[in-house]
């Protein structure tokens, strides 16, 4: 407390010195954008006290329950229709379902960043696609050789740098009042640059990335983290249907 008083006293003396003349220079300020509470839950301004304060449930974008089914059905249909990149089609349909399910979040994000919902949609698709490109076990299966730790680290760094650079660039475009067309050009350019550099690092290509995005619905996943149902709700399982072969993309 004594330290605070001393500093305040010094500050008062400093404040009594006359200000130098201020140059009247007009500066264009970026528009203030409202921060949505949906995207930014309010952090208590004072430390919570145990016994008195409890955390509130923070809303978050969620995946619809049938997301895997949506993706797998979209893949099967794309193959049946003879589409060139069925994995991409299925992945996009999965993201479309996710975005529709989280429309309120998409709108809030668009408002906060000063862009359109369509841009948020495309950027969500690209963000998830980039995460998929970091599935090293599957990438190694696809390129049919091990990927060194150094290359994996470089690819991860590429992801983080692309992300950071893009955020700075798009926000600058928005602050400068750039058109939607200019923003889409940046989005497209960022996607192209990331994929080109990623291909150069890993030996992947568009066809192999399509396989990556398609995924494998027959693969066993991590152990589920759900509690077992009550005994009285458990009935004997019916016999499983015969396993259908996965539609071939060729």
């Amino acid at each position, binding site marked *: 407390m004594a330290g605070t008083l001393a500093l305040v006293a010094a500050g008062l003396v400093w*404040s009594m010195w006359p200000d130098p003349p201020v140059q009247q220079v007009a500066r264009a300020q970026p528009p203030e954008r409202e921060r949505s509470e949906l995207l930014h839950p309010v952090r208590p301004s004072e430390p919570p006290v145990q016994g008195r304060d409890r*955390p509130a449930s923070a809303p978050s974008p969620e995946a619809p329950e049938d997301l895997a089914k949506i993706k797998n059905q979209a893949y099967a249909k794309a193959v049946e229709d003879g589409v060139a990149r069925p994995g991409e089609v299925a992945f996009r349909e999965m993201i479309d379902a996710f975005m529709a399910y989280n429309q309120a979040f998409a709108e809030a994000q668009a408002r906060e960043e000063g862009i359109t919902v369509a841009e948020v949609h495309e950027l969500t698709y690209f963000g998830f696609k980039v995460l998929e490109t970091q599935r090293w076990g*599957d990438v190694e299966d696809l390129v049919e050789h091990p990927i060194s730790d150094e290359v994996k680290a470089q690819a991860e760094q590429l992801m983080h740098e692309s992300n950071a650079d893009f955020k700075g660039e798009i926000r600058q475009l928005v602050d400068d009042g750039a058109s939607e067309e200019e923003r889409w050009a940046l989005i497209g350019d960022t996607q192209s640059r990331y994929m080109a550099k990623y291909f150069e690092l890993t030996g992947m290509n568009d066809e192999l990335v399509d396989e990556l995005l398609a995924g494998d619905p027959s693969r066993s*996943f991590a152990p589920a983290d759900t509690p077992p149902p009550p005994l009285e709700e458990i009935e004997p399982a019916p016999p499983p249907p015969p396993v259908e072969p996965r539609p071939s993309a060729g």
Partner: protein
Amino acid sequence: MRKILTVASLAAMLSVGFAHQANSANYVEYYRDNLFIGLAYHRVACLTNWSTIQSNQDYDGFTHQRYCYSGANAASVPNGSWYDWNYATGKSQLDACGSSTNSKYNTPNYADRSNSCSYNVLMDCNSDCWIRNFSKCQGRQVSIASPCW
């Protein structure tokens, strides 16, 4: 006038700072980092005393990106915005939950990939599921996007 306002703000900040220094409670605070300003998030937890981050340990999986820096302001982390919290008993509690989650997802020492499950977005082997398991162990499950069957 600007100087007077600056001095007043500085005095207020120092007073608040002294008040926070008196708080010895621990918290686990959660932050999320969105890729390319879309709705794809990475989630991470840090140990704090509400004022500052108390440890350099990131509690997350499936990334090498660093977020928790001891001494930094707990209101946010680099590239990440705050979204949730819970009381914590201390670093040993969070370390124990981190260790148990690393075992479950086979991400030894908070590895950026699992040795047993194949990373997949919006399904059940990703940073969402890691943080869900960690937060549930810690005492309060936080919201995430993936279903994590």
